[in-house]
């Protein structure tokens, strides 16, 4: 037993009375981060959205170099192989490893059904070549972006061989190549269309929300009228207006504008309701008292506070445009060949008997579904990330 008192623990370190107020570097990073950085951090945690975003970025990059990715050029016709079924890729021939190759196609006319039938010619091994240059098979040369001649491909068939991984169509054109080229049109329509609808939505919704009153009432009525039209019949009617004498490029522009012009009401409505609430805030009054013009107040003070939200909802409406173009072209009211989009490709699959005989003509459906899903997931992720309360 000892009488020594229990020792007190005393921290030797200097006491900082402001320790609760000063931030650790980590906290400081979080508190000082801009809104966009916060959004990025939140988005990064949403795995599905990140994967979809990467997928979309890859696809959009691919349309820059479609010519290189596709083994054939857009209009290459292999008249000996009409409606040829997809070739399967093999690795072993006769138990020997030869790497990825396809067998040659043997075409024979079935006189009973008056139809070409195709079978694998196992004696003809055609190795797939990679990073090949040279015009040594039909359809190898192309004009890069319609300007520079070239013949470099990521992969291509053997010399004077065939490589139809997804079969060929009515004119003997490679379906896979056409899908790769079709991405160019189908995807840009969505982007340009959303650009138009975004600008219109911002301007019109901004005016209605900021000024209110009469302008607001008129805009509200217009929105109501446009929204009460079922979109597809309206698109159909409007695209029937485009004169048949227009060149395919002009039709492309016309269809894009139609899709964009009818999409803005949703965005305008969102902008309007946010502006109506925000213009009563103190910072807005302050800006007004300091003599800022309406355009400056809307553009500099009001819009940025919900821009992230707007971008998220715009992302979510891109797929509907892609689907709209696909539907119109499928019906034959949209784009016309030689412009090739996924809808134009699917136009060939309109007839059920054709589809039953040549089901590979339906393959352009796959990228459509993938792209729409990816936009949906990515947009959902963006919206969650843009929402500060989640």
């Amino acid at each position, binding site marked *: 037993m000892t009488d020594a008192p229990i020792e007190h623990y005393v921290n030797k370190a200097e006491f900082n009375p402001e320790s609760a107020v000063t931030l650790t570097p980590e906290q400081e990073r979080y508190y000082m981060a801009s809104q966009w950085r916060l959004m990025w951090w939140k988005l990064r945690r949403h795995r599905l959205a990140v994967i979809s975003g990467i997928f979309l970025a890859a696809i959009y990059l691919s349309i820059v170099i479609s010519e290189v990715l596709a083994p054939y050029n857009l209009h290459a016709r292999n008249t000996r192989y009409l409606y040829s079924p997809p070739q399967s890729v093999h690795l072993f021939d006769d138990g020997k490893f030869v790497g990825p190759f396809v067998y040659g196609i043997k075409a024979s006319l079935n006189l009973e059904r008056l139809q070409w039938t195709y079978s694998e010619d196992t004696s003809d091994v055609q190795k797939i070549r990679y990073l090949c240059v040279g015009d040594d098979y039909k359809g190898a040369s192309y004009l890069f972006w319609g300007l520079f001649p070239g013949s470099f491909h990521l992969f291509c068939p053997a010399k004077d061989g065939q490589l139809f991984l997804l079969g060929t169509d009515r004119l003997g054109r490679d379906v896979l190549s056409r899908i790769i080229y079709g991405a160019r049109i189908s995807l840009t329509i969505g982007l340009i269309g959303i650009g138009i609808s975004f600008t219109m939505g911002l301007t019109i919704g901004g005016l209605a929300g900021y000024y209110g009153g009469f302008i607001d009432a008129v805009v509200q009525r217009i929105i109501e*009228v446009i929204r009460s039209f*079922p*979109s597809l019949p*309206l698109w159909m009617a409007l695209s029937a207006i485009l004169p048949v004498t227009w060149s395919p490029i002009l039709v492309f522009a016309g269809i894009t504008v139609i899709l964009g012009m009818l999409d803005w009401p949703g965005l305008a409505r969102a902008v309007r309701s946010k502006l109506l609430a925000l213009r009563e805030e103190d910072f807005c009054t302050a800006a007004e008292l300091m003599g800022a013009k309406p355009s400056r107040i809307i553009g500099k003070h009001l819009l940025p506070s919900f821009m992230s939200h707007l971008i998220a909802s715009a992302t979510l409406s891109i797929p509907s445009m892609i689907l709209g173009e696909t539907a119109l072209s499928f019906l034959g*009211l949209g784009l016309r060949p030689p412009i090739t989009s996924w809808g134009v490709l699917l136009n060939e699959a309109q007839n059920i008997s054709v589809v039953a005989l040549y089901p590979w003509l339906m393959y352009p*459906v796959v990228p459509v579904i993938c792209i729409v899903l990816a936009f949906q997931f990515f947009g959902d992720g963006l919206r969650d990330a843009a929402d500060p309360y989640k």
Partner: protein
Amino acid sequence: MFNYIVRRILVMIPTLIVISALVFIIIQLPPGDYFTTYMNELQSRGEKVDAAKLEFLKQQYGFDKPMIEQYFVWATGLLVGDFGYSFEFSRPVSEVVGDRLWLSFIVSFTTILFTWMVSFPIGVYSAVRQYSVGDYTLTFFGFLGLATPNFLLALILQWMAFSYFGTSIGGLMDPQYMDAAWSVDKMLSVLEHLWVPVLVIGTSGTAGMIRRLRANLLDELHKQYYITAKAKGLPPGKALIKYPLRMALNPFIADIGNLLPEVISGAAIVSIVLSLPTTGPMLLNALQSQDMYLAGSFLMFLATLTVIGTLISDLALAVLDPRIRIGGGAAK
């Protein structure tokens, strides 16, 4: 309540007038008219065209009058059920259209019922059992339905039916009933064929509905009144149905305004693919051949259907939600 209904119906009238004007402009916009197209066609076939007859026809249908006057003739005709004249079929539009409007209506209506019936239980389930295997599976299928374009789904279904069962699933009734008068047998035949288009058109709307109901119900489930109700010992089923579900139902009904245009759009294109005797295929045809009054009355019919649908949903909402009924404010 009465005031609200009257006001809501009055608001509808200017909307319909603007829509009719818009429809008229749209059908007038294509360069040339049916007669020019018709004349070109005859000439290309090497037949002679009687200019006097053409002039007579143009006068007969008022093509020489100013635009505004033509519009008034057409719009007032609509009010008394005179939809104009179809040039392609050389018969009044109302005769050409026949059952098509009704069949369109039946298809759209059944689709909406189907959408509600399917999405309601699924939405509730995936909200209550959030992040369960069932929730994930159903959400996945919902997304897939959302992403697959209607007409492609129709095509794929048709292809599968064709290649696996060797049957064609197009049409809306057995061929022998095509021109027959309405009877019980014809009705049954229609019901037998109806499920394919309803299923196809319904998928995309169903997916959206499920997701919205799920989100709404989840919001309610996190609120304190629900926690209190559970804490006080209310059985889970009763606690769910009595309060949060009722709150989450509102947007469900209000959403018909969004759902209806979607369903009608879907119905238009799906019926072209499946060759249903509804408005879709004929609209496409009329647009392509510039049969303007036929196309115009279809567009007008589809838009009116949407406007009336929105009206019904607003009224139903007023019945359900006392705040709207008493306040008399807008539904949204």
